């Protein structure tokens, strides 16, 4: 049984459906990320887990205890720690008072409070700053206070809502790893919200991609990147060429199909979930720019090889970006090495059938 079970959760604000009956399981000790574009319901899901929002339907079970179906359990009784997007570090209290606030409510003994506070301060690297007011701290330090406050009570569950979004890029990358290591070390089950795909891929064990109140795909970073469930996921995580077409033939073991596109009568594509005969279906043959191989001269005997014209070429330091026109279709290509061809010149593209997937 999963540590956090979100069952058929439904939440709307007046007419706006924020979460549309989602199911989600988080395993003990796992770090799950909710990833998705702005307004897709990530924060709302997190706030439902925290108990800061009351969903209309569904249940949330934390460590075997239902939070909704057997009477609403208020946030204060859920045993969670939470890091808010804007930190929400109380400005009228010193760092130390911020951190021990929850411990005092639990009526822990004074020496115990002191000990725990010292531990967590060392853990997040805030030693020596305990007597400052938040206004006297940098953004990153305030962030650490928020983290310390969430961790100090040994919560069963840690919830983080875009904790790094207010920091500059450099610090963000640093703290990503820091948070990941810390949470791993403490073994806390955690749910992390972000709309930054790189952050999600670095920090989480599994990612739940959300769109318009639905979880559209759940899996590890690799699964989601390599085998996106639909066009939305493929587009949101990295970039993808979408080539519209129609399935003309499904191969016998059903793990590959031929697709008729504008530039090719038979484009061989890989299938991810191969169960049915798709012949006649309108699909998108999809391939990531870095999976397209390029050749200055045509190699012999190769399927899925097409001639195209370079429309645009851009140098980006560690790789080259091309827009190549094959007949009337524009295909984005990314290569890690130098190519002498310039704009207007010809090129051969190999759309590797193993990497070229069809998406509805």
């Amino acid at each position: 049984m999963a540590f956090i079970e979100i069952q058929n959760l439904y939440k709307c604000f007046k007419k706006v459906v924020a979460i549309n009956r989602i199911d989600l399981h988080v395993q003990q000790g796992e770090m799950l990320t909710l990833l998705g574009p702005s307004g897709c319901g990530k924060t709302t899901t997190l706030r439902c887990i925290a108990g800061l929002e009351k969903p209309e339907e569904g249940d949330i079970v934390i460590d075997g205890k239902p939070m909704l179906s057997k009477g609403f359990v208020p946030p204060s009784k859920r045993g969670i720690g939470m890091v808010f997007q804007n930190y929400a570090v109380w400005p009228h209290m010193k760092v130390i008072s911020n951190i021990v606030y929850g411990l005092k409510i639990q009526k822990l003994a004074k020496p115990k409070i002191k000990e725990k506070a010292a531990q967590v301060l060392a853990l997040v690297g805030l030693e020596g700053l305990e007597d400052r007011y938040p206004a006297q701290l940098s953004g990153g330090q305030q962030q650490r206070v928020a983290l310390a406050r969430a961790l100090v009570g040994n919560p069963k569950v840690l919830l983080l809502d875009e904790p790094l979004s207010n920091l500059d890029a450099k610090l963000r990358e640093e703290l990503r790893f820091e948070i990941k290591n810390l949470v791993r070390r403490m073994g806390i089950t955690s749910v992390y919200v972000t709309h930054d795909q790189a952050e999600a891929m670095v920090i989480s064990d599994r990612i739940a991609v959300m769109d318009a109140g639905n979880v559209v795909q759940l899996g590890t970073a690799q699964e989601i990147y390599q085998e996106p469930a639909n066009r939305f996921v493929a587009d949101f995580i990295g970039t993808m060429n979408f080539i519209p077409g129609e399935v003309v033939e499904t191969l016998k073991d059903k793990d590959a199909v031929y697709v008729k596109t504008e530039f090719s009568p038979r484009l061989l594509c890989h299938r991810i979930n191969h169960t049915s005969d798709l012949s006649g279906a309108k699909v998108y043959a999809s391939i990531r720019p870095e999976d397209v191989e390029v050749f200055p001269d045509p190699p012999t005997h190769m399927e899925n090889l097409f001639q195209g014209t370079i429309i645009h070429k851009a140098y980006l330091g560690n790789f080259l970006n091309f827009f190549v026109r094959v007949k009337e279709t524009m295909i984005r290509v990314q290569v890690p090495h130098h190519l002498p061809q310039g704009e207007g010149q010809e090129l051969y593209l190999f759309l590797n059938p193993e990497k070229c997937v069809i998406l509805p």
Partner: protein
Amino acid sequence: MSRGNVILAALLWAIIAFFVLYPLSILVLESFKISGTDNWGLNNYVEFFRDTYYLKTFGNTLLLSTLLLLTTTIFGVPLAYILARYRHRGKTVFTALILLPIVLPAFAGVFAFIIFFGKYGTLNLLLMDIGIIEEPVNFIYGLHGLVFIQALHMLPFIVLGLSAGFTNIDPSFEEAAEVEGASGFRRFFTITLPLCTPSYLAGAVLVFLWPFTDWLTPLILGQVDFLPSVSYINISYHFTDVHRKYMGIVATVVSAVVCISLFLLARWWVEKRKYTGLSKGTTSEGRVVEPSPFVRLGAYVFMAFIAVLVLLIPIVLGLSAFSRRWVFEPFPTYWTLENFRLILLESPGLVKNSFLFSGIALLFGIAFGLPAAYLIVRTRVPGKDALDFVITLMLAFPGIAVGVSYLLAFWQGIPLATHWIIMPLALFARRLPYFLRMAHSSYLQLDPSLEEASEVSGAGKIRTFFSISLPLLLKGVLVGVVMFFIMAFQEISTAIFLYRGGWETLPIGIYLNWHRGMEFGIAAAMAFLMIVITFILLMIISRIGGGVLKAAWGAGEN
């Protein structure tokens, strides 16, 4: 730094020096004069603080201030919370009613409550009729009545500041506490309320200082042993008794010093801890709570209680204005327009004077306020911050102190007080901050690049001001204009020292009618007239779209 700006600054400083600094320094100097000699010394102060009567007066005033602050806080905190956080019907109406006293003249409330809560007032008579009580209950004559009447008048200052605080603090501060396990009261007292202290304090200091300013309410209730009332009585009625005169002047200075120092202290404290800058803007509209039916009912009853008390003021004065011989009866029986006929026939000058003096004061206010706002917001002329500071201080300055200092400064030295122009000038000096603050805050919102674009196009500074800035500022300026007019229109504390026969304004007329023991009905009718005029002006503000509350608050406090 252009020369024009420097000249402008010098001009404005000259005006401030002549109409504010000069009279005030005369007041202070006078308080150090040793009577009967040409020497200076601390004698008056020593005498003042040795005299048990004046010490008692000082103590009384402090006591009243404390009780007033306590009462307004006890009522104001829940009220502000309900208005800011509960989702309920009629929010706008309740808010407007509860905040109304801010624009009503203080004396209107006193008269209304004497009629309603007095010994043989409506409430006592009704209760005796029903048989609940046999003897009339003393509802208002005494310290408790004073606290009650002043509290109702000052409650909006607490409610306005706090409810803005409750609305504006970032919801996640409280949510974080909720997650940490703090529920209900604990969260409110450890997080919400402390975060709102700056907004609370801004209003609280004005509440606390009110008993050091309001001489009229104690006087009408027959409780004269408070500093401002003593100042007024000593100076107005015993000017020839040198000892009492000097004690009055010292009392005035002491009040003013208390007001200014507490005001500065509060400002310093608020500046020191402004929490607002820390929270990054969130999308939500603050935390709106859906109260349980029981709590909601309680909230309604509570709000209605305050709203009814406020509504009593115009209603009772209205009843009184349209009737005569309303005594020993719970409600008037004889309806007439006689009161208004008397006002128009016998003292039409009052209404005319009120409009004339406030109008001229307003012209002064605009002529001074617009350039001052420009100078403070848009330039770096040296001394502009000091200018802003002095003008803001006038908010806390007791009206009595302005009146007495004008009396001293413009009577013998510069004989300005022999001409009626002293009346609008004094109103101008007293209400100086109201227009300026409004112009100031709208100026802050005006993007400087709009003006710069005009200058780049070749328009000079003055032309840019009139063709670009002023039209864009118009709304804020108009609201400031009306607010200034309302505040000048009901001014009495300063004017009462300066008027001579024929210069009486409506508030003075009201006071004199009460004081000379003439018929109460006429005073009530005049007060009612003032309320009606104030209402019309408020309508104008809301038509301009400035928002009455913002006008009152923006002009007053922030």
